[in-house]
Structure formats: C-alpha cells, structure tokens
C-alpha cells in the first residue's frame, strides 16, 4: 500500500494542537498548549461517541422536519400549511425550475447526503471497512463544507414571516417543522465537527510500532 510509508506524528511521539497548529511532544497529552492554552489531545476525546450521538439525534429530528408544516400562508382567511416538500413542488409548478432545484438540493438532498455521508464514515470505522482513506477524507470535507447551506430554508422562512404581515389580507406564520429542521442542520454540523479525521488514517498507518509496544 502506497500510504504505508508514511508515519503519523503520534507514532513518532508528537502531538498537534488543533487550535494553533503548534507541535508538542506526546507526553504533554492532557496538558494545556503553551501557545493557545487549549487542552492538548493527540486525538479528539470521545470523538466517535459524540459524532454518533449528534448523528442519531439529527436522524430523529429529520422526520418531524419533513412531516410537520414549516409555515402557513393565509390570504383572506383561507390557506393551507406547507411543508418543505410542498414548498418545493409549488416552486416547480409555478415554473421556477432553477430556484426550486436550489431549495430541493439545500433542504432535502444535502441533509440526506450529510446523514448518509456521516453514517458511512462512522460505520466504516466501526467495522474496519477496507475503503480508501483518501476518499473518506474527501467525503468528510464535502459533508463539512456543504453542511451550513441547508440552513437556507430557515432564512427563507425568516424573511417571509417578517415581510408578509398584512393582517387579514395576507399573512405567513411559521410552523414547528422549522424548529425540527433547524435542529437537523445544527446537529449534523455538530456531528461532523466532532469527528476526528485523523482516525481514518490511523487504520492505514504501519502497525509495527504498536506490535512492539504490546
């Protein structure tokens, strides 16, 4: 394997502070970094447990987020509550294909892909799947980069609710689906944030040093 020739900092007795990127010796584990004063850990503590916890919580919130109405539009006393999906269908039926696609990608596709992506990463570490570490790293980077963009629908609701307040003429009120949706976005972001990518590469490091130790 081509990655076999590389050695990690931990194997050679070093530890990187992830805040200020200064290098320390491994003995300083659990002490504070002398530059930025944050606690030093060779790998993030409880990274997999935390990542799993946030991911499972986000999956739970995913259902109310898509089933409960996110807002209700009322004009002259009549109107129906709309969910995320019905809002997208409405945009498509009005002929706004481009913008409908943007909302579809931001509110349905990205949260789904984020959950599936994190699930793949966590399961592959749990069951030691022999997949490319480089691909997994890019998968993580994709999840991390794209994560915040699913907040889009929350801001759309915020703008609509503030603008359309014309009494009985027309008004939009927010629904509780929005709370669940915001929770999905934040929880998946936290799940990604608590995942230590260095664990992906630890599996590929030469194991000779560990064998000598044990």
């Amino acid at each position, binding site marked *: 394997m081509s990655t076999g020739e*590389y*050695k*990690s*900092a*931990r194997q050679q007795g*070093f*530890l*990187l502070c*992830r*805040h*200020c*990127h*200064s*290098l320390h*010796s491994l003995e300083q584990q659990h002490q504070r970094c002398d*530059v*930025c*004063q*944050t606690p030093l850990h060779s790998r993030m503590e409880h990274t997999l447990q935390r990542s799993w916890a946030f991911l499972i919580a986000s999956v739970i919130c995913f259902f109310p987020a898509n089933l409960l109405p996110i807002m209700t539009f009322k004009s002259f006393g009549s109107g129906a509550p709309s969910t995320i999906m019905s809002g997208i269908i409405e*945009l498509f039926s*009005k002929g*706004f294909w481009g*913008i409908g696609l*943007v*909302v579809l990608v931001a509110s349905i596709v990205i949260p789904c892909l984020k959950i599936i992506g994190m699930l793949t990463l966590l399961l592959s570490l749990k069951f030691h799947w022999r997949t490319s*570490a*480089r691909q997994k*790293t890019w998968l993580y980077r994709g999840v*991390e980069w794209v994560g*915040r*963009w699913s*907040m*889009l*629908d*929350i*801001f*759309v609701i*915020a*703008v*609509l*609710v*503030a*603008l*359309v*307040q*014309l009494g009985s*003429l*027309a008004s939009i*009120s*927010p629904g*509780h689906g929005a*709370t669940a949706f*915001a929770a999905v976005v*934040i929880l998946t*972001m936290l799940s990604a944030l608590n995942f230590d*990518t*260095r664990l*992906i*590469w*630890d599996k590929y490091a030469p194991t000779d040093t560990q064998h000598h130790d044990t």
Partner: protein
Amino acid sequence: MMKTPTSSFIACHDCDLLIARTRLQKGQSLNCPRCHAKLFHARLNPIERGLALAITSLILFLPANLLPILSLSIFGQQQSETILQSVLSLYDGGLAIVAAVVLIFAVLVPGLQILLLTYITACLQFSIAGHYLRQSLNLYHTLHGWGMLEIYMIGTLIAVIKLKDIANLEPGLGLYCLAGLIFTTCLTNSLFDTQHAWQMVKQRRNSGEAQP
C-alpha cells in the same frame, strides 16, 4: 534559543502526518502530501489586509442590520423587513428556538467575528500587548463556519421569487450593505487566517523570553 525537535516538524491537522518544516516564499502554500489538506499558506500581509477588511466590515455591519433589506407593497399596504425584524417575527410566531438560531447565525456570530478580527489584527499590526489576544484567537477559530450571512442573502433571494407574483418588492439600502458585508467576509476568509496570527503570537512570546 535552542532548536527543539518540535520546531523542525509540522503535523497535518487532518491526517496527523509528520512532515519536515520548510520555508515558504510569499504567496506559496503547502499541502499535505498524503491527504492534500492545506497546511499553510504564506499570504501577503495577512494582518494588514485583515485589519482593513475588519474596519470595512465594521462600517457595513450596522446599516446591514438596521436598514430595511426588502420592502413589500400590496394593495397600497407596505411592509419592510430587516434582519432583526425577521428574528422578532419568528419569536412572535411562537418559534423562539428558530428565532434564536437566526439571531445567532445571522447577527451575533458575524458581528462577534468582525469585532474579534478588528481586535486581533489591530493588536498584531500596532504591536499592542492585547491581554485577550489568546482568547480572541481561540474564539475566532471556534466561530469559523457558523456565520451564515451569505446563506441569509440567498434566502432573501428565494423569498423574493416566492412573493413576486403577488406583490411588489423593492430592495432596500440594507440589502446593498449586506452584499458588501458578504463580499468583505469572503475576502477575509481568503486573505486572513488564524495560523499566521498564532505564529506572530509565538514569535512575540519567544522574543519576550529572550529579553526579559
């Protein structure tokens, strides 16, 4: 100062690969040979540019938040919207949590980032002691990625498209300030990074130790 082994190596923050430290020319960047993470970018005058951008953002921040972003008119009735008003309407609509989320990601985090950046760059640029420099840099690093002004902007755009059939919409002065603020935020992200600031903090501390 004695050269310790830790100062002749760097480690990749994404895959923990240990790499020998190399000197970079201005404008060059160093990527991890194994996972291709960007390890360091020797930017041109990052502190000076960061300060300029922080001041520009500071000027734009208040009008972007207080002036109307959009105004809507329908049957002679008018309604205008600011970011803070959208927070209040969500709160009035019974969604306190969503209101808090919008307040935090679209107002508080961007505002705090601008204030921190101003403080950090001003301290480093003018060699001010800066007792809270370390805490500020840590907080700035933690907040990275949680400011969502550009997403608010796209959200506004989608709201316009949803409403343009039933009402007349006018962009307000706040929208232009918001666009400017997003532009300066993007520039800040590509021209300034905390790593360079940390290196300056380290250098300062080392020179302080050499001449007590």
